[in-house]
């Protein structure tokens, strides 16, 4: 990791950003000469719709992200710090939310990164006294939570995770046969409660009519018409969230018990009772 210390000065955000930006590793400098904001705009525009481009852009601007996170933290931020990860997701947010009306992209991104990191810091402080269960536990390959979950058999907890991993891999592979990736599903997931509820109706209906699930597996397509009729959800809604619904229906086919167990709350009726 190249030190950016020399050029980093506490100063107006924008100026600092530019300085850091210059200071890429020698190899990088040839490939990515300091870009004017204008050149970045093109990349940002592409990154808005392409995840690979977004990842690439983020990789390119890692030093920048680290610098902004460091500023927000008040100390040097390394790649191990959570703040760095937060900075990266903030950069994603900035890519999404940027429009030229906002002025310089880097300035905007810097703001988003710093504000996000600070927000999370504050939140962290509120919960400071409690140790996080996701932290690494006393033994390697295991988190604190897993250890605590079953102190007698720490191995089981870790094994549980491995089993889950296997299920997830399989789900991803099956989804690939449908031309769907997990990132598509995340993108396609409904944000509004009522839309989510409509999708749930469709999933509930499919669960109650396993022949629909069979058809899904067989034809590799979503039986939208029948789902729509049967669940009463609006056709447009179901169409719009096709990928998400497909993913969920797949989860309710055979072989994904763990994942299904996790989303137990999804189909719970209003009263909160578990479905049989």
């Amino acid at each position, binding site marked *: 990791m190249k030190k950016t210390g020399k050029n980093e000065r506490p100063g107006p955000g924008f100026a600092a950003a530019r300085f850091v930006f210059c200071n890429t590793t020698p190899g990088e400098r040839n490939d990515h000469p300091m870009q004017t904001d204008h050149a970045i705009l093109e990349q940002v*525009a592409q990154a808005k*719709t392409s995840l690979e481009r*977004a*990842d690439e852009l*983020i*990789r390119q601007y890692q030093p920048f992200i680290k610098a902004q996170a460091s500023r927000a933290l008040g100390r040097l931020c390394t790649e*191990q710090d*959570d703040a760095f*990860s*937060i900075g*990266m*997701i903030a*950069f*994603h*947010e*900035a890519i*999404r*939310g*940027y*429009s*030229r*009306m906002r002025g310089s992209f880097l300035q905007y991104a810097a703001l*988003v990164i710093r504000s*996000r990191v600070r927000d999370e810091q504050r*939140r962290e402080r509120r*919960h400071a006294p409690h140790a996080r269960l*996701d932290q690494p536990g006393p033994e390697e390959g295991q*988190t604190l*939570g897993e250890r605590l979950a079953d102190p007698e058999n720490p191995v089981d907890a870790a094994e549980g*995770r*491995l089993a*889950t*991993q296997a299920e*997830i*891999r399989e789900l*991803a592979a099956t989804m690939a046969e449908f031309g769907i990736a*997990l*990132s598509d*599903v*995340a*993108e396609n*997931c*409904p*944000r*509004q*409660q009522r*839309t*989510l509820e409509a999708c749930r109706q469709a*999933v509930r209906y499919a669960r109650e009519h396993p022949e629909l699930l069979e058809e899904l597996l067989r034809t590799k397509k979503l039986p939208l018409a029948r789902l729509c009729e049967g669940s009463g959800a609006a056709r447009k809604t179901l169409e719009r*969230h096709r990928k*998400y619904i497909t*993913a*969920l229906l797949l989860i309710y086919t055979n072989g994904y018990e763990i*994942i299904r167990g*996790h*989303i*137990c*709350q*999804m*189909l719970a009726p209003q009263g909160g009772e578990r479905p049989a």
Partner: protein
Amino acid sequence: MKYLVMEARPSYAILLDEEGRFVRAANLHYEPGQTVEHIVPMRTRAPKGKGVLIWLPGMLAAACLVLMAAVLLRAPVTPYASVYLTINPQVRIDVDRQSTAQGLEGVNPDGQALVEGYDWKGKHLDQVTDELIDRAVAMGYLAPGGAITIDLEAEDEDWVLQTNQALQAHLEEYLQYQDLRVTVQVGQSVSIPVAPAATAAPTAAATAAPTAATAAPAPAPNPNDSGYGDSAYGDSAYGTAPGAPAAPAAPQTGDSGYGQEGDSGYGTASTAVPAPAPETGDSGYGDSGTGTAATAAPAPPPETGDSGYGDSGQAAAPTAPPAPPAPAPAATPVPATPAPQGGDSGYEAPQQGDSDYDQPDQDSGYDGDD
């Protein structure tokens, strides 16, 4: 709430919550299969100001309401000309001599999907194309780098020439304003690269103005509703009683978008209603935004030349008639100044609108903590 880590990528992770939501969040050194409680979700932020997509659901909702009334009150008129808008979906917009939409039809299946539920009645061609473009973006038919082709079909050559120019200029400006990098081809000759020319705005507005102005004095049916008539940006979701725009609809004098009849989203709905009659010339950005609709009303008669950028946004208030209080055909001064704010009204407040799409500003609801 517990989250199951589905995927852990270098710059973010995909998590599944207990209610079946898939969430993108910071990858705090997660491993797939892990269950976590504390997350830092990715928030959706709207591109500043011009959050068109935020408006769409509101607009569509209101459009449906307005559609009913509008359908009942509008008398059918033989199309004077047809405008074909092609991206991938293709639609045909039938217009009358003043370029007000008389009919809209999807030519291919995608086109039908694009126009389904869309209210075009009484809107000016500029507005319809803008809104269809917005829809296309929202529905994924159009993305940066895409192309839009416009074909004009009419017996009146003058109309074709005039509209060719005006529409071209208008779209050029609109696309730049939306920060949408697409190429536009109107007629078969000119293609418009969308360049960030600051100079484009005033000229485009200026060209838009005269056409609007010429249209303005025209008879009642919708004189000059230019561009941003009343739709999305205004009226809809926020409260105009469905009746309000309908009532004046009969005279429906070109009242567009912002303001008159209280339509612009921000209240003053009913109070404005009586206004419309005189408002013949008022187009686009009448005085939208918060309130003032009613007060503005009386002014309009002189405003006949007023095009597009009346005084939109919320600021306008009582001095409604566009900046130059001289209500006189503000045509020239108007576009110049308010032009930039012109579109403002539509986009400002309603960031409460929510949509299912990532882009708009809706807080995804995940604060990260349980």
